[in-house]
């Protein structure tokens, strides 16, 4: 740079000017936090140091409100849960051993607020960010999934967000060549100004290719490569007024990051080649907090220190100040640690892929992170204090007073339940349910995503889980499902979180896969509200307890707080991503019956109680109150184990879980999956369980699944259920001749009519 456009606030200058006013509050630091920074440094921070501490100590990066609770995921573990875990929580993403020398890494993250401000770019960069997490572990990304939550379907602003987010997820993911194999779409007024865009990515690698991001080895080079650094995502940093004395420069930096999927696709191939040739010691992706995060985390994870010359950063915008460069969230950038001996190989690979890079500095043994600008030291910190030793809060939490009233407001007997459908009215009720925004076909969304690319997709939406082959020789593969039931969590955060976990577990097992690992994305309101903090604490406790009961570890995830507008928080939304393993994806179980299954027996596994509180039917009638369905994880585990074994042994040809919308939704979806009808009789099972036909169809009792059993397997099937003492009931047969869902004695629903209702809703609203 030829002329200085700002006052350089050096470490020396900071020590000499202790009383300089700094905009710590505008950068989001609390007074006690700013005092801590001064105490750590023994002086006031420089502008650049303030920028680093403020972003790294933000809720988003430091988990300062949540980590006292999150540590349960590391504490509530059994030996069983650790046996396949190769890398646990704390790295960019956890890694699980799936056998045959293969390892899988997966993670789910939120990109909520940016997706409200600029839906297309927010969603696109959300996909980009999670994919970089996977790459940095040394894995090849093989699939993505996106649980999305929007405001009311008919609210005037919802279409803007839906169109942008879906196009953004597709535009970025499709361009990377990653099949999108599942997710969720929910509409609820609580997400009106707080849509939730969560993104999951999964990657695979050989055991020997696992890499951890740390800076070790004195003399190793620290290199920034990929896209150039611009002003993306540093809206907040513009308050670093003390740095700027040129009023003519753009006063407001863009808060919006713009993604370039082509640049990321090249980064994927380029990083894999770096890993394959063992050219790098480690790679760190640049996400939130950009270079601040990458340098402090790499240095903090290594055993030594690091020196960086910030003037070496390749810039898209030459007017950026050092603080802004440190905070920039420009996308598609990575930081590598490379030994001098490998520099030539590194440069060759960069040249092959036409990727720009610059050497910023090197690893040393100072145990300090020092950053210079034009030869002057502007940062001199212990990297651990920036990256890992940020503030921790024991936020007060308390069960809100209104919780009792909410739980006392049961759906059965309420005004909303006054005209409970029966007999032939059930037909209209099922049609209404299957056309409702939350149970209608999500084909309008998923048809905008590529599910074929890579040629390894064995199951995708609308099946219960996405299934992707990992090994083409053996058929070894993984299944993934993401689930949340925020309405249950609103009624009881502890039980609601466990229900989300149970549903994800069940979905994976239903596809025929053995559930092995969890990643979670915890979306909540403001932690400064004790009631919200209580929801959060209860949900985390529920998940941690539940994972221990199910014997699956949490391998990583993300927390998104402050999802609220004014005093109105979103429903607590703990999204659970479950991964399972299939020895041969060719044996995966479809979620519906095909024509050649004509005459197969349909069984309902599990028992039904009248559990309509928080249900989809109650939502249709505008009711949210009472207690969520009872969660019995021992039963879920039993059911999951049976579904996996039955699938492997050929005892079932299709299986579909029973969840939101109850048996009515499960049967409808199983019929619509391949357009093959069924004749169902619910009299006996309703009598066994002591509920009416309506509750049989619409109750959301847990630990249930609908399966189709070949005639020749019925004896073995029943023997297994009996041996395991698991309730089962034969409720009908697959009927390929009659294209209808026929519930005997109650109603018959033509599948063409059902499909029109099911598939018309999103098209009608969004075109």
């Amino acid at each position, binding site marked *: 740079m030829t002329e200085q456009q700002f006052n350089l606030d050096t470490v020396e200058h900071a020590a000499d000017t202790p009383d300089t006013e700094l905009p710590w509050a505008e950068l989001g630091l609390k007074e006690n936090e700013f005092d801590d920074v001064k105490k750590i440094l023994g002086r006031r921070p420089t502008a650049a140091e303030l920028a680093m501490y403020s972003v790294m100590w933000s809720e988003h990066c430091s988990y300062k409100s949540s980590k006292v609770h999150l540590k349960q995921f590391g504490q509530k573990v059994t030996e069983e849960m650790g046996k396949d875990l190769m890398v646990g929580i704390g790295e960019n993403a956890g890694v699980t051993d799936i056998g045959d020398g293969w390892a899988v890494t997966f993670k789910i993250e939120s990109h909520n607020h940016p997706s409200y401000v600029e839906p297309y770019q927010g969603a696109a960069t959300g996909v980009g960010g999670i994919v970089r997490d996977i790459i940095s572990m040394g894995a090849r990304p093989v699939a993505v999934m996106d649980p999305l939550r929007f405001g009311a379907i008919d609210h005037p602003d919802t279409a803007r967000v839906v169109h942008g987010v879906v196009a953004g997820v597709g535009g970025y993911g499709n*361009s*990377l060549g990653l099949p999108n194999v599942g997710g969720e779409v929910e509409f609820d007024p609580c997400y009106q100004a707080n849509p939730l865009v969560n993104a999951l990515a999964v990657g*695979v690698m050989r055991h020997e290719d696992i890499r951890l991001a740390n800076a070790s080895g004195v003399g190793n080079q620290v290199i920034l490569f990929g896209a150039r650094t611009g002003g993306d995502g540093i809206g907040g940093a513009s308050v670093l007024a003390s740095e700027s004395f040129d009023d003519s420069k753009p006063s407001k930096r863009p808060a919006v990051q713009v993604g370039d999927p082509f640049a990321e696709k090249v980064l994927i191939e380029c990083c894999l080649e770096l890993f394959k040739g063992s050219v790098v010691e480690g790679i760190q992706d640049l996400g939130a907090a950009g270079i601040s995060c990458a340098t402090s985390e790499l240095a903090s994870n290594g055993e030594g220190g690091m020196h960086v010359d910030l003037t070496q950063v390749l810039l898209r915008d030459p007017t950026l100040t050092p603080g802004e460069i440190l905070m920039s969230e420009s996308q598609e950038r990575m930081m590598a640690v490379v030994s001098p001996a490998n520099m030539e190989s590194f440069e060759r690979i960069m040249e092959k892929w036409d990727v720009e890079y610059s050497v910023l500095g090197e690893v040393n043994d100072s145990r300090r992170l020092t950053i210079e600008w034009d030869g002057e030291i502007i940062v001199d910190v212990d990297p651990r204090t920036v990256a890992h030793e940020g503030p921790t809060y024991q936020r007060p939490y308390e069960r809100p007073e209104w919780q009792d009233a909410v739980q006392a407001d049961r759906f059965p007997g309420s005004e909303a339940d006054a005209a409970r459908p029966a007999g032939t009215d059930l037909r209209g009720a099922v049609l209404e349910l299957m056309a409702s925004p939350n149970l209608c076909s999500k084909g309008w969304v998923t048809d905008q995503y590529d599910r074929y690319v890579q040629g*390894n997709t064995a199951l995708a939406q609308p099946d219960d889980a996405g299934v992707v082959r990992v090994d083409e*020789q053996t058929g070894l593969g993984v299944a993934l499902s993401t689930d949340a039931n925020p309405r249950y969590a609103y009624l009881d955060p502890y039980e609601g979180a466990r229900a989300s976990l149970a549903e994800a577990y069940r979905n994976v097992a239903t596809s025929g896969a053995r559930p092995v690992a969890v990643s979670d994305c915890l979306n909540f309101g403001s932690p400064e509200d004790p009631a919200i903090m209580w929801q959060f604490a209860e949900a985390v406790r529920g998940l941690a307890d539940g994972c221990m009961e199910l014997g699956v570890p949490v391998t990583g995830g993300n927390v998104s707080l402050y999802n609220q507008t004014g005093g109105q928080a979103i429903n607590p939304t703990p999204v659970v991503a479950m991964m399972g393993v299939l020895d041969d994806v060719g044996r995966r179980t479809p979620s519906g019956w095909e024509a050649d299954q004509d005459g197969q027996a349909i069984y309902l596994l599990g028992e039904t109680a009248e559990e309509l509180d928080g249900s989809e039917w109650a939502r249709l009638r505008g009711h949210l109150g009472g207690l969520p369905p009872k969660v019995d994880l021992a039963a879920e585990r039993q059911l999951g184990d049976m579904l996996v074994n039955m699938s492997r042994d050929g005892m079932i040809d299709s299986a579909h879980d029973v969840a939101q919308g109850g048996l009515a939704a499960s049967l409808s979806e199983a019929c619509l999956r391949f357009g093959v009808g069924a004749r169902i009789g619910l009299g006996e099972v309703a009598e066994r369980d002591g509920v009416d036909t309506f509750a049989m169809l619409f109750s959301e009792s847990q630990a249930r699944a609908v399966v189709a059993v070949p005639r020749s397997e019925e004896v073995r099937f029943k023997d297994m259920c009996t041996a395991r003492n698991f309730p089962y009931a034969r409720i009908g047969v697959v009927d390929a001749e009659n294209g209808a869902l026929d519930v005997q004695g109650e109603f018959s629903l033509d599948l063409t009519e059902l499909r029109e209702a099911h598939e018309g809703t999103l098209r009608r609203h969004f075109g």
Partner: protein
Amino acid sequence: MADSSVTLETPLIADLGQEAADSRLARVRVGVVAFPGTLDERDAARAVRLAGGTPVPLWYKDSDLQDVDAVVVPGGFSYGDYLRAGAIAAKAPMMTAVARAAQSRGTSGSSPLPVLGICNGFQVLTETHLLPGSMIKNDHLKFLCRDQRLAVESTATPWTAAFEPGEEIVVPLKNQDGQYVADEGTLAELEAEGRVVFRYAGGNPNGSRNGIAGVANARGNVVGLMPHPEHAVEPGFGPSSSGSGPVAMRSGTDGLRIFSSLLHQLVSA
């Protein structure tokens, strides 16, 4: 820059170098061109291998065709497609070499190089002017991924010689810029000369003129096709239907026949 370390297969995922069963077919070398943003090159290589041939990776920066007998330009977003789909890729050294070989007179009796451009590869071939027309955004403006029925209208190309004229197949369609357009004169010429190779059946998914899904050059050796035959080659991982009716879930393999057709044509030639 010639770089022999560029590989199409993903060693992390699969070994694509298996020995093919029929050694005559296996001797047929089919080049698969990769640009930095190409996405379906592994799928195209897998399709060639499953059909019995030998896939050969061709890197866009090179200009050596490595003695391949045919070339597939697979789908993806070759250069991010920020200017026009395929526009920048068409200028790559490898495409110059492909274009030359595809247009060669074949003085020694050898026929011109068979080339198949799929999706973005089709767009690259139109930008290279090997094929007429162009692609614009779908009439519904969205990316669309679905199983698509096609009629094979011309069997006078090496890629479709194994089909019956008018036969229907089902392969996945996935694109945002898939609407085929050409001026009236060109369309009339294509129709009159029987150069519409594939036409959408059961509804036009994107507003393409005359329902055109794929066309050939005048000599028939160069074919462009918008949908993806390489995604319908393996039971369990393809579409859930075929031209001849329903199949088990995801077990449609109609696309494989396009690659088989080529290999058999080349072996019997």
